[in-house]
């Protein structure tokens, strides 16, 4: 009888370990994770369901009890707030990626931006940013502009969006003259071009921490996925999209 069960399990590995994982991830990871997921699903038979959005919104959702197995934030602050509330498995927390900022304009725009200071010029009537009070991409952009003492000069032009992809869309549509998003977002879109790439050394420290959510019903499967995201295969894909990969701890 035991041999029969063993045979059964070996022949149908999917039955033995089929987990459905809910992953809440920062909006900037949308495209890269959607490319990685099918690879992971084929290998393991697990199903991965994504919830992309501003990290601030996702953290709030997890706080209010939304189902999630893995959380990947675009800044440490959001992960800190969940860790303080003991909503993540602290031992599983690690920073897996970094990124750089880019100033973008619509691809048919004739505006010249040689440096960030040009954002204060008259030809830039509005500047799309993810909400600078709460969304990581916006917080990073504000931090950067503050450092350059440009924030006060452009704050009245800011059009805040719910997440970084909203800022991208605003520039793509031509309704915003310029925007600040992650370089990885700019690379995704053919409708915008990078007017100025913020060198990593000058820009803010960007970090994408990931952790297994404390209330997860499949922590082992979540951990497996997290390990996969740090595998050489996955790291290759991240680099392809323009992310900076943090070494595995």
């Amino acid at each position: 009888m035991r041999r029969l069960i063993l045979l059964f399990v070996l022949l149908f590995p999917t039955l033995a370990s089929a987990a459905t994982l809910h992953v809440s991830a920062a909006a900037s990871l949308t495209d890269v994770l959607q490319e990685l997921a099918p690879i992971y699903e084929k290998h393991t038979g697990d199903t991965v369901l994504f919830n992309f959005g501003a990290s601030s919104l996702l953290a709030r959702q997890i706080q209010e009890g939304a189902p999630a197995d893995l959380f990947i934030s675009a800044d440490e602050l959001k992960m800190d707030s969940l860790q303080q509330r003991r909503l993540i498995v602290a031992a599983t927390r690690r920073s897996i990626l970094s990124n750089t900022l880019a100033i973008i304009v619509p691809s048919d725009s004739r505006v010249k931006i040689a440096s960030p200071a040009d954002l204060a010029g008259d030809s830039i009537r509005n500047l799309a940013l993810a909400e600078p009070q709460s969304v990581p991409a916006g917080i990073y952009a504000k931090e950067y502009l503050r450092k350059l003492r440009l924030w006060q000069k452009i704050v009245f032009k800011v059009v805040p969006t719910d997440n970084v992809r909203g800022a991208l869309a605003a520039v793509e549509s031509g309704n915003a003259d310029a925007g600040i998003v992650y370089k990885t977002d700019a690379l995704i879109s053919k409708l915008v071009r990078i007017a100025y790439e913020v060198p990593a050394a000058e820009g803010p420290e960007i970090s994408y921490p990931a952790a297994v959510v404390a209330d997860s019903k499949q922590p082992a499967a979540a951990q497996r996925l997290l390990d996969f995201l740090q595998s050489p295969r996955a790291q290759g894909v991240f680099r392809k999209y323009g992310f900076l990969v943090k070494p595995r701890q």
Partner: protein
Amino acid sequence: MSAAEWHVVAFTLRVAALSTLLIAPLGVGVAWLLARYRWPGKSLVETVVTLPLVLPPVATGLLLLKLVGRRGPLGQLLDRAGVDVVFTWRAVVLAMMAMSFPLLVRGCRVAFEEVNVRFEQVARTLGASDWRVFLTITVPLALRGIVGGLVLAFARAIGEFGATIVVAGNIPGRTRTLALAIYDDVQLGHDDAAFRLLGVAAAIAFVALWTSEAVLRRRGAPR
């Protein structure tokens, strides 16, 4: 309540009032045509007018965005004239107008349909022009419903969120309305502030309804 919060309230009241004022003539007119006449294309007009009521508000916002955005058909003309709409207070007014228009038309249409045609007929035999009949007979007899429609439209404008956030954005000091401010407070976890603003929104609705009732009572509008 902080100064910024009062600013949001004042801004919302201003744009909602402007929106209601702008849709009033067209809304009353369209309601009148729908109530009294049959004409080719009438069902199409009825459907288009009702659309913002049944579509998700963000969908209506999207349609507006495509229309008046810088690359849109109307937006290009406006851009050449130097008029910015998207991400400005004008887009807020536009979103409010689109979302409250169907409510105004519905309310007025029912009011007009309830006015007995005989009154209008007799007025015509007494020599009154169509305008005079409309202003001296139809509107006074339908007034209760018309005022009700306007108040409802105003209240809807105050509460407008989905279309506004898509076409006007949520820009503090420029396009942040009461509804958007409540949303922000909720997002940031400032529940106390959210409830404060909620209280103001409820108070506004209450005052609007009470005022319309008082105005109608003073006129002695017949039932």
